[in-house]
């Protein structure tokens, strides 16, 4: 078992961090009438641990006997039937699920499945002390507006038989109306010294010798994510034990990858290469780009996504728009083709695009002059927003990189001539 799971506190009584929140939660569920709860906070801050411990507090150890079910639901939506697959994790008293997994069909999950579950009273045996069951919904910030609306009345109407525990990263993305129906519980990321405590605690349990300052170095690199700190602690243990005081803390491989991308982007930017006249490049590369686009739209597997024939024309337009943008910076383009491969690889490894973009920004900000930082962070925000409006994240990531390269280039020219 991974240490992250092995050392996850099971009850509210032995939390290593967030003791205060745990204490409060305990009081909150001491009576039958606790309100719905909304847990929010950055990832890796310990929301899940708190929720699981809370369930245990409510229902005793029966909440740990969970079974995983993957069920296909047939939903009758008037003219057609929709099939949705959903994985749930349930015990006798609670059901946990991730409704946003259903993507744009998440509304049906809320309207049909969740409502149905909320409606049915739990089977209360003589010993059972709760008159309600609990539905744990993860990642509610990823739910569509419609799905969130659909939750509203359900939360009120069936509140005597069911409590909702909602969990999300950013509460700004949860509508006002939902927030107004819950008691909001903020779970902050643990501070570095708290992380150090946890690491030392684990070290002791595992019988490890920690050199001075070793835990602190891991904590510092963890970006205040406890999960991440414990993971890299375990990696260190696997890589080399006994620890040495100067042992390297391995970064995540994808992060290393991003930093390679960033040095790629910045390497090519020597002003000399910009000696081409703008216009000649433009003409030269334009035909090339068009040819490329035609190729893409014919072969239909841009990035091996396996497009359907009718999406070609849309794809064509999308590509055209992005490439029009790009061809203004044609030198940039060649570089970009190489960088794209790397970005694409990150995305296929399931690193969420906004995380990639934030990491890119982080690396860039470390290397840039103050003067440029404002400009670059603005465009990062701009393209990340566009990413949510558009369909294919990779286009916007590329657009951001292209933008950056052109800005950086003008900056170099202005500074070094």
């Amino acid at each position, binding site marked *: 078992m991974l240490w992250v799971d092995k050392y996850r506190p099971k009850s509210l009584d032995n939390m290593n961090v967030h003791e205060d929140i745990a204490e409060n939660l305990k009081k909150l569920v001491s*009576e*039958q009438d606790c309100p719905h709860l909304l847990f929010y906070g950055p990832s890796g801050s310990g929301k899940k641990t708190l929720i699981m411990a809370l369930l245990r507090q409510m229902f005793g150890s029966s909440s740990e006997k969970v079974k995983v079910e993957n069920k296909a639901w047939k939903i009758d939506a008037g003219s057609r039937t929709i099939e949705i697959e959903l994985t749930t994790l349930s015990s006798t008293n609670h059901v946990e699920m991730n409704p946003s997994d259903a993507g744009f069909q998440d509304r049906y999950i809320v309207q049909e499945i969740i409502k149905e579950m909320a409606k049915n009273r739990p089977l209360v045996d003589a010993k059972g002390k709760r008159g309600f069951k609990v539905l744990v919904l993860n990642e509610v910030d990823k739910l569509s507006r419609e799905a969130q609306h659909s939750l509203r009345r359900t939360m009120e109407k069936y509140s005597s038989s069911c409590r909702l525990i909602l969990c999300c990263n950013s509460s*700004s993305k949860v509508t006002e109306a939902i927030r*107004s129906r819950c008691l909001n*519980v903020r779970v902050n990321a643990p501070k570095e010294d708290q992380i150090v405590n946890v690491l030392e605690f684990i070290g002791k349990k595992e019988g490890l010798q920690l050199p001075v300052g070793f835990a602190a170095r891991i904590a510092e690199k963890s970006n205040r994510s406890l999960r991440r700190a414990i993971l890299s602690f375990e990696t260190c243990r696997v890589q080399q034990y006994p620890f040495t005081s100067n042992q390297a803390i391995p970064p995540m491989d994808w992060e290393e990858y991003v930093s390679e991308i960033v040095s790629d982007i910045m390497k090519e930017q020597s002003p000399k290469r910009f000696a081409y006249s703008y216009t000649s490049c433009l003409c030269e590369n334009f035909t090339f780009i068009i040819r490329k686009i035609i190729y893409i739209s014919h072969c239909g597997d841009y990035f091996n996504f396996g497009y359907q024939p009718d999406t070609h024309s849309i794809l064509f337009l999308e590509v055209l728009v992005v490439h029009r943008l790009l061809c203004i910076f044609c030198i940039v383009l060649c570089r970009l083709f190489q960088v794209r491969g790397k970005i694409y690889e990150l995305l296929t490894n399931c690193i969420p695009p906004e995380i990639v973009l934030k990491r890119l920004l982080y690396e860039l900000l470390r290397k840039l002059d103050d003067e440029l930082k*404002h400009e670059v962070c603005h465009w990062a925000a701009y393209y990340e927003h566009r990413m949510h409006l558009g369909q294919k994240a990779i286009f916007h990531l590329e657009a951001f990189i292209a933008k950056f390269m052109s800005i950086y280039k003008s900056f170099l020219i202005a500074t070094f001539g």
Partner: protein
Amino acid sequence: MAPVLQSSQPWVEKYRPKQVKDVAHQDEVIRVLNNTLETADCPHMLFYGPPGTGKTTTALAIAHQLYGPELYKSRVLELNASDDRGINVVRTKIKDFASVAVASGQRQGGYPCPPYKIIVLDEADSMTEDAQNALRRTMETYSKITRFFFICNYISRIIEPLASRCAKFRFKPLPQEVMGSRISYICKEEGLNLDDEVLSTLSVISQGDLRRAITYLQGAARLYGSSISCKDLINVSGVIPPEASEALFFACKSGNFDLANKEVSNIIAEGYPVSQMLDQLLDMVVEADDISDEQKARICQKLAEADKCLIDGADEYLQLLDVTSNTMRALCNMPEDFTYEA
């Protein structure tokens, strides 16, 4: 089993007014509805306003008071966003219900029982425009035997032809005194004691949303027992402490990007909601007297843009960083346009 279930309701439900006259502050609509109770006459209605101001409560209360528990099921159809309300449902379920004739009006068991049915469409702003359009005919055709109650937060999401067929009532955020008296009532029932200062803090942090106020109150009561202080309430409500937003503002003034970036990262790690941070930043900027109007305008424009982006689902860290950088440039009189943008 029944008594246990009774007490397992959260306070918001426990203290939901059962009668129209108990709904606080929404005098206009109450007057009209009281009239309805007497004359049994009622137009189509449209209730709109922010969350937790009593819209659903009022609609359900009047329906119960008109028909009583026996007829309620057969006379009232309540559909909310948790029901599928696509165009198909409008054409079938709603139309079927609307077209059923009802016995002529006779008081039964002390209830007025007017000769029409009521269809309550709660959270109507989540209905598609098509579905709303499909409703127009139904509304007109069966207007003799069916009344519609639309309930929504944003009236602009209801298509004009529907809205113009209804008597519209805006549900106002509850002012401090009203909220105070309702909360005091609950406190008495639950055996809590709050002093005036705490009451007014509660009203301020819940911003006219009574449901929120009740939830905070219950939370605080569970956590801190029967005497509750302002600080307890602030803890429960999760509002951002002023120090956090001040630190950010200070970093903006300093003109040091890295410092500001660190503040932003810290805010995100602490888990403060960025939308709320933007609100607080706005307050600070507007109230500051050492900032010129032009600077204020520059800052506010960006705040508005970021708010919109957040609603579209943009990343909180990036948006706040962008706002912070923009604020810094405005405060330190750096040029508005970027230098190197092509």
